[in-house]
């Protein structure tokens, strides 16, 4: 079926996608690398000069940078833990036959389709607000002093919002994996006297292992670039307490107009993301073969 004719046609059909993505990857990225070695501020055009590793040195000796790296890791780790644990629990629950299953499933999945700015603002104003928020009323009703979530525990609060957004994604994927578990195997184990806990540990979790890995890797890629939720809730503050790497680069670039410094930060972010990406690509590549 495959002749030289169809092969050259195939190449022609692939060309636009390949060329566009090649441009998208190479042009801006090499510009970022170039800028990262310049002393370049958008407010002072025409004063660009070569700066060597100054921008990197500036970034790597800035305490805000280490805080941002730490915040990024806490945010990614916390959200991953919450969504995977919660996702497994919800998937097991939703896999049980029950009344109104369809509706429940839809409600569980819905947060994923809410745009990040909306969910962050709703959480900020209606749930976490220290005066009018639902949590504050709840605390007062129970006789506690309401806390101002976004200024006293900003990073935890943001992690909570982001976890709420990503829990449906984990649930959906883990549920899909759970549904492919053969009923017979489970029943056989039950007949052999395995209790629910043992079945979970020895049959269900190993069966979901791959799906869990996929969830972890894909979420990590997206969570490294959490941005909108921080912008509309805390603006990275108080101080830099809730600034992650993405937000730090954004501040450097579009608020301080320091092109060189922001580019150096961007390159560091690229390197971090690549470490994860290598594992993900390799795993999906293996999957492509079978």
């Amino acid at each position, binding site marked *: 079926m495959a002749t030289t004719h169809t*092969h050259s046609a195939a190449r022609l059909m692939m060309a636009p996608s390949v060329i566009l993505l090649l441009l998208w990857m190479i042009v*801006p990225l090499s510009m*970022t690398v170039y800028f990262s070695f310049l002393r370049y501020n958008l407010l002072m055009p025409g004063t660009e000069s070569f700066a060597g590793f100054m921008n990197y040195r500036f970034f790597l000796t800035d305490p805000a940078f280490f805080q941002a790296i730490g915040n990024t890791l806490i945010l990614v780790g916390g959200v991953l833990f919450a969504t995977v644990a919660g996702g497994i629990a919800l998937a097991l629950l939703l896999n049980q036959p029950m009344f109104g299953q369809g509706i429940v499933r839809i409600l569980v999945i819905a947060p994923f389709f809410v*745009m990040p700015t909306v969910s962050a603002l709703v959480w900020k104003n209606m749930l976490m607000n220290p005066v009018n928020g639902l949590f504050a009323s709840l605390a007062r009703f129970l006789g506690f002093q309401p806390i101002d979530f976004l200024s006293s525990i900003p990073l935890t609060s943001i992690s909570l919002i982001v976890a709420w957004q990503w829990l449906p994604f984990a649930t959906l994927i883990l549920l899909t994996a759970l549904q492919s578990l053969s009923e017979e195997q489970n029943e056989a184990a039950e007949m052999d006297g395995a209790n629910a806990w043992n079945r979970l540990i020895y049959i269900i979790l190993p069966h979901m292992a791959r799906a869990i890995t996929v969830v972890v890797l894909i979420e990590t890629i997206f969570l490294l670039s959490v941005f909108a939720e921080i912008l509309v*809730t805390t603006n990275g503050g108080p101080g830099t307490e809730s600034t992650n790497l*993405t937000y730090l680069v954004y501040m450097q670039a579009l608020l301080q107009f320091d092109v060189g410094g922001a580019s150096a930060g961007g390159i560091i972010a690229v390197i971090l993301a690549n470490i994860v*990406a290598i594992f993900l690509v390799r795993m*999906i590549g293996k999957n492509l073969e079978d």
Partner: protein
Amino acid sequence: MEVQARSNYFHHFWNSVAISLGSTVIGLLIAVPAAWAMAFSPTKRTKDILLWMLSTKMLPAVGVLVPIYIIFRDLGLLDTRIGLIIIMMLINLPIMVWMLYTYFKEIPGEILEAARMDGATLGKELVYVLTPMAIPGIASTLLLNIILAWNEAFWTLNLTASKAAPLTAFIASYSSPEGLFYAKLSAASTMAIAPIVILGWFSQKQLVRGLTFGAVK
């Protein structure tokens, strides 16, 4: 005052529609032929190309924020719909190619041979055999990409001010509260998410497939 708020809302709503639909349709026009070629005429390098495309999706946005901002400023693309359509199309192109590829892969090659034996020309094959079989996959890809583009909130916040701002950016402008605004915020938020939450309900299955690049089906 109310009227102005309302007309503002529709202005941003149309920006969202234009950006998500525009980027998805243009993206499909580019991705369908590529996925088609990879599924039906694979070479030794097809797998590498697919994985490379996937890896472009993993480039963090901040890594290219500065140059894109400067390029857009110099070309006059800041705060324009066309600029955002280009960016959305590029960031979603790898997902589109991947999703379409996994769907096209499932169309059995024997059907083509059978059609050819029955004397179908390439054109007839395309119109009567392949297109009907490919439409569900294309429709799912369309749906998922509209959702992703509608909710995208890094580039839309950084590259727009007001003229081309979609709903994500419009809603973000409510982040500094002035007086009584809960009702307004609720109304705007509901209207912003309603269309996409409804679309999302229809596309749960495709979502898993699209977002895991076929790794979980």
